[in-house]
């Protein structure tokens, strides 16, 4: 579920005023537990998920796991 947003470079963390970095992030759903590369704030760990990712690939994986 690797994802690089089209406009992610422009976003930064408002809390920490830091630029986002690509990092391994743990995601969980139902019995599924895996790691994916996502953009996140290196200091407060907020992970950036844009609309295309949430409604595209992520939804697909959710549905796949729900039907297992």
């Amino acid at each position, binding site marked *: 579920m690797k994802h690089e947003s089209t406009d992610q470079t422009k976003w930064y963390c408002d809390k920490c005023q830091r630029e986002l970095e690509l990092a391994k992030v743990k995601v969980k759903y139902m019995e599924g537990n895996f790691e994916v590369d996502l953009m996140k704030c290196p200091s407060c760990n907020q992970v950036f998920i844009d609309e295309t990712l949430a409604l595209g690939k992520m939804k697909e994986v959710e549905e796949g796991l729900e039907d*297992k």
Partner: protein
Amino acid sequence: MNLDKLLETGDRCIHKEPPTCTAQCPVHLEIIDFLAEVEKSNFQNAYKLMEKKMPFHKIIGRICDHPCEAVCERNKAGGSIRISELEKAVLEYGTYKPKKVWPLPKNKGKVAIIGGGLSGLTAAVDLDKKGYTITIYEKSDRLGGRLWDFVDKGLTEALLQEEIKTVKDKKMAIQLEKPIDEVRLEALLTEYDAVYLGTATWESPLKWNSSTFQVEASTLFVGGQLVTKTESIIASASSGRRAAISIERYLSKVSLTDSREREGVFDTPLHFEISKHVALPPIEKSGEIYNPEEASAEAARCVKCQCRKCIEGCVHLRNFEMSPDAYVRQINHSERIILGTHYANKMINSCAECGLCKEECFLDISMNDIIHETRESMVERGKMPASAHDFALKDMAFSNSSRFSLVRKQPSKEESKDLFYYPLISFSDYVKGLYKGTGKTEYLFYPGCQLPASYPDDIKSIYEYLVGHIKGDVGIYLGCCGAPADWAGQQALMNENVEAIKKVWEEMERPTFILACSSCIRIFKKYLPEIAIASLWDIYVEKGLPNKDHIKTPQTLSIHDACGTRENSDLHESVRKIVAKLGYGIEELEYTKDRTKCCGYGGLVYYANRDQSNAFVNERIGESENDLLVYCAMCKDLFVSGGKRTYHLLDLLYPKDDGEAATRKMPTLSERHHNRSRVKQILLKEIWREEPEETMREDQFKLIIPDDVKQKIEDRYILMEDIQAVLQNAEENNERFCNPETGEYLARLRRDNVTFWVKYEKEENAFILKSVYSHRMEIVEE
């Protein structure tokens, strides 16, 4: 879930049963497929179907006595399909050179065939193909028997010779001029592993089994006219083929009788109603045989007899291209797999649980019950996708929370004293009703959750009407009956809900519930049969309509009955009486009353599969040009969103001057919550004159929402309170991303099992929403 019972039900469905024509065809030509190919002018494909089922198809196709035609259903609507004429045409236009088949090694045993007529040749060729060593004994000097009688009567001599040559070309021994008598037969029976007797007559009486053609327990098998006792060509051929099957089974030492019920002619269990089809006469031939165009036109008259009653009524079954028998197999598969993907989940959650299928099926097969039981089983096994029903179940929880739920007895005489002295009000029915109050709650008005969400301003009026018109105290009970839990297959939650309702009922000393929502009625009948119920609409009929001057423009309406009312014919009549009393004309829809269709909300399909829900909406609103009249809030909501002018009965009973009732957009998901809370507030303040403990939740942030974002909010089942919560967290804790180039913020908040995202811009003291979305997957921020 009892899967054996499930499969049994699936097997009862006659959808896949053959039509009468095929059942009466002794070799079971697949006539529907055959005619479909002819209709499309695919003569070669049609030819292959003949080749597959008919022994010596080039001969039989020209001289068959076609028992199929006598039973063709088309006969009741214009005349039987000329199947045998079409076979002739196909032999003319679809013949192709057969592929060379390599003979099997002849090592399976020796079989003698007595009689070289059609049945004998059929048995010989079939057994030869399977690897038996064959010897044919024919008393005359040529093969073919009575087929020679057909020369110049359907067959040419050249064709017959050619077909006989194909037999001779095989590796069989052919002994001509070898008559067999009883003595010779005895010898053959010892010499060969099995003997087939296909002579038209035999010197002494024989006793054979009518389905295996075996003579007693011997190695002798019979066929042909000796057995069929008719002139029928196709019956002879069929008997030869069936005897060959018996010989093969006998020599392979497998059961001779297993699953042979449908060999030869049989009665199909299929029921087919031709009455809906207009009569069409057969196409005349312009020449000796049909030309290709005529053949195709004649084949097109076939109505493809098949039971599709339930499928025709149900856009769910049609969307998934499922017949009940196939559906059952899919469920069976889905229930059995442990690892791997449950592909049927989406389908199972796309049924509206409307019950039309059972109503349409003369065998009472209910996909509704089967699918419902499957959902319960999925929930039990933890296999129900959470996303399918989550929103609806949360909505139900909302309605049963203190934000909506309320139970009150009728305001007592004591509490209402002040009203009785006030001259004007004391004339109102309502106050008169209060004056007669006894303190014993005879009735409990239970409007359900969707009616207050859609018609918040009418609940108080209805309550006042009831107090004013019904003998005995009327209390009120706000909450959700549990229909979402039922539809979602959540038995535990459903039982909890039922117990909660029962408790109120007991505490109130078992009053009769007055119900206004068709789903509530269905749920009460199913789960709470001990509670007496009355329908609000029945009460209007009995006690008179609430207002005097309703009629605006008299017009003709088509009534859409909610699918939950299917079995409630009294209710159907009450609604019609009210509509007529109000001065409207009624034109019934094709699917109405006990045969009504679902609006697209039932079974929670609205949440589980929006495309499927839309298909229900569109099919239903396309049924009539008239404005529709409904009496369920969700029906109204969906039809109006689909662009259909639709009145709810309350629009007519309590008319409002705020625009066209038939096109009024129904409240959004968030407004529905808000409206329910408002109903509780209004009732508490204005009927019980109490100060509500809980105040309405006010929005914290002022939002500007463009139309496209509004639509997204609805389509993605996001509530304004979710959005407000995301913004609050973002603003208070700065937990958000920011894009300096566009000045936009993007913030997230996990609430319960969903993460909500809001993209926004700030403008003075308002927030302009740019987008909203959500996901269920949890991101571990560490």
